[in-house]
């Protein structure tokens, strides 16, 4: 494999990683602050993608489509937080799993009912459709590069938000001691709604950005959700930094595994068998990574016990 | 017979800058009640946790019945014969009082890997459990759900479960708390007799009980043992007086 191709695949891995980060950041914040496991986070990803596809179809503007994905997912997040999720904070994890699984059923079938079973397509804006030339003569799709940049900027923004702002202080306080922030006079239920909507907006944006690369369809959020769980398990629950490192690790492992493993087995196996073994192993690579992290650090790389 | 059963050697544990256990050495000899007292936050519970398992010390060794148990997990220490009661009751709350005691009897028997024999129909386990409940005066409550017990009764159930284990030594973390005057008095009498079965390392706030019961008393202040001795020696010890009186002055 040429170096150029390898660098291109590393960039693909980074792009995948920052998308996973947008999903995982919301999940890990929601878990860290409210102690809630939200299976319906993938549905919010889907809501963002569908909102973007609908708005892009109606207006032709990609920027408006992205804004719509943020607003729609945040609104959907706020609505389910107010209607359902807030009844679950004091419940055990089983109830949370079941109720949010029920939300998935409702969201998925509801979307199918509204938009039909056929996938929608969200076009990459023409200005970003071509490749750009990176230093070293590497040709790389401009849109994918933009995703990496957006993801990086959002990651930085989140770190700043948590570290510097008033709401960030409340979030950190909420992670360590719920009674404490209540005693400080913070309106907890408002804080929870905001955090949930923020996480939802990030998921929705990720859905819209990825929707332009793949297709927009019902159920698109679930594989991403499960990968985001793997990210969180690796990074440690509640840690934004862990989510970032975990997301990049998973993105790179998955992308590079799929490219490199079949070739690796090709070195000592016949081609057909090598492809089969290599691609099967590649499909399991991130889970093996997760198992390895668990063996040595049961609470993840940046998790506290 | 003065060979100690439990021997704690230079145990230390820090949480960040806080030295919760600071070079503590203690012994528990057969037949004695050794009380551990000290102001709040002196590190008594941290010390008990390190002895019973569940919290690894930074340094030091713990020997029990001729065996180094420093690195053993909690269940292995229990099987070696350490019977523990908790400061905050730690019981299976959905179970009846009898079920909790039977659980202890199952643990004592050591063979949990039986899958088809109804456990509550096992006469031997029931007898062990009922005998322990009778000794602490909870036999009448055998069918009560544990969550419905008063705090004091839960402490007694903790003691009863520890009894079903037939341990070689007891670690009791404030068994008198929540018992009220007459309950405390009754338990004091019971523990007095219990020491001949197995020695007791007793953490207790009830000073009347401590001075009535303890053969030896160790005083823990800021994680350090500042004195060990008989009740008279401890009463007369100027450092202890200062630690306690000083606390009262500050209060």
């Amino acid at each position, binding site marked *: 494999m040429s170096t150029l191709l390898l660098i291109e695949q590393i960039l693909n891995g980074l792009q995948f990683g920052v998308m996973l980060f947008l999903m995982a950041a919301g999940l890990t914040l929601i878990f860290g602050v409210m102690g809630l496991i939200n299976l319906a986070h993938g549905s919010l990803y889907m809501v963002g993608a569908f909102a973007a596809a609908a708005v892009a179809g109606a207006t032709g503007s990609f920027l408006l489509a992205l804004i719509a994905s943020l607003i729609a997912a945040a609104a959907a997040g706020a609505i389910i937080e107010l209607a359902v999720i807030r009844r679950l904070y004091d419940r055990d994890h089983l109830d949370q799993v079941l109720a949010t699984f029920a939300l998935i059923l409702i969201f998925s079938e509801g979307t199918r009912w509204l938009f039909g079973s056929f996938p929608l397509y969200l076009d990459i804006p023409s200005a970003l459709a071509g490749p750009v030339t990176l230093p070293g003569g590497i040709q790389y799709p401009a849109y994918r590069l933009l995703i990496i940049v957006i993801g990086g900027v959002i990651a930085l923004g989140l770190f700043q938000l948590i570290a510097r702002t008033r709401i960030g202080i409340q979030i950190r306080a909420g992670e360590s001691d719920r009674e404490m922030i209540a005693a400080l006079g913070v309106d907890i239920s408002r804080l929870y709604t905001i955090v949930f909507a923020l996480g939802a907006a990030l998921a929705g944006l990720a859905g819209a950005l990825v929707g332009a690369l793949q297709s927009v369809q019902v159920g698109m959020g679930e594989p991403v959700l499960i990968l985001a769980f793997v990210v969180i398990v690796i990074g440690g629950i509640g840690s934004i930094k862990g989510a970032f490192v975990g997301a990049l690790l998973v993105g790179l492992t998955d992308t590079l595994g799929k490219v490199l493993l079949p070739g690796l087995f090709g070195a000592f196996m016949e081609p057909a068998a090598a492809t089969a073994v290599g691609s099967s192993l590649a*499909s399991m690579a991130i889970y093996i990574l997760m198992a390895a992290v668990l063996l040595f650090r049961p609470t993840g790389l940046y998790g506290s016990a | 017979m003065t060979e100690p059963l439990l021997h704690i050697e230079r145990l230390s544990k820090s949480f960040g800058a806080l030295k919760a256990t600071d070079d503590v050495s203690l012994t528990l000899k057969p037949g004695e009640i050794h009380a551990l007292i000290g102001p709040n936050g002196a590190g008594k519970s941290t010390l008990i946790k390190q002895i019973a398992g569940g919290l690894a010390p930074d340094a030091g060794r713990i020997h029990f019945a001729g065996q180094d148990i420093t690195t053993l997990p909690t269940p292995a220490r229990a099987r070696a014969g350490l019977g523990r009661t908790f400061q905050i009751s730690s019981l299976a709350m959905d179970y009846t009082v009898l079920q909790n005691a039977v659980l202890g009897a199952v643990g004592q028997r050591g063979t949990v890997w039986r899958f088809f024999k*109804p456990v509550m129909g096992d006469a031997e386990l029931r007898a062990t459990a009922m005998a322990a409940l009778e000794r602490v005066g909870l036999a009448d409550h055998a069918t009560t759900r544990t969550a419905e017990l008063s705090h004091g009764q839960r402490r007694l159930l903790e003691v009863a479960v520890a009894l079903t284990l037939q341990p070689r030594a007891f670690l009791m973390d404030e068994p008198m708390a929540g018992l009220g005057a007459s309950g405390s008095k009754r338990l004091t009498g019971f523990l007095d007799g219990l020491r001949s079965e197995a020695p007791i390392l007793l953490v207790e706030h009830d000073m009347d009980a401590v001075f009535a019961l303890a053969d030896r008393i160790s005083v823990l202040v800021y994680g350090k043992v500042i004195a060990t001795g008989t009740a008279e020696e401890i009463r007369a010890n100027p450092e202890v007086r200062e630690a306690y009186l000083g606390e009262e002055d500050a209060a």
Partner: protein
Amino acid sequence: MTRSALINLVLFAMLPVTALIALALDEPFIITLATKAAILALAGVGLNIALGLGGLVSLGHAAFFGLGGYAMGILAHHAQTFTPLMEAPFLIEGTKSMPVIWLTAVIAGALAALLIGALSLRTSGVYFIMITLAFGQMLYYFAISWPAYGGEDGLSIYVRNGFPGLNTLDPIQFFAIAFVILAAVLFIAGRLASSPFGLALAAARQNPERVETVGLSPYRLRLLAFVISGAITALAGALFADLNRFVSPTMLSWHMSGEIMIFVILGGVGRLYGPVAGAALFILLEHILGGLSDFWHVYLGLLLLLVVLFARGGMIGALAGREVAHD
């Protein structure tokens, strides 16, 4: 007889009575539905040992269900194509014999549960949920990307596997097989719950510290519960694949894990007969609501939401009133 014992008896009798009435009315499709309910109930009984008794919220039980399905699919596939499963180091042939397939499924499920459980049980709470989900998904993607056994398309079996002395193609005879297995497993699960092991396992759910203090290891108790649970769910998977004469990665998907959990919850978590009620209700809803609307999962979702938020004892809980489960 207490009220919940009566309910249990009714639930237990419900499936065979339905099947016999359908036989009398010559409605083989209804017998097949009753068979499906019995098999899904079996999967639920398996999950309930981990979930209800052990408090282990596994969102990866489709892994065991699907493994059981593939145990059936792979053995029968080799038997029907007359190719050996493997030749070296020793010869393994395919088979169409149900007992052999069941045994294989149980062993495969137990081994997978041992591996997944040994890793997952090092953690607890929400980590455990996410990790079991992830390992389940790992097998799902593996099944999709492994081409030898149909990949994404799955494996079809031309003729249902055989059981000595019975005609398994006759719906009522196959129902009888599934129901007898369900009854046997219910009996075993009931004995398990009241055994010393069950007492200690349920105590570890309520308070692991207490169990450690009496000298027992919660990890080992839970691991064994997880293995038994996985083995039973795999057995259900083998039967389910035999019912459909088809196995595909769908059986391994996390929706399947969620559905098995729904059977347990709709019926009432921690209740021995809960999964029977839940699976029967699920099949009933699927056919009533599924007939009314293509989007019946919306209604299923709403129902599940209502049960979780407002009727935590599930169906049996609502019928039996407030009683302590596992008596």
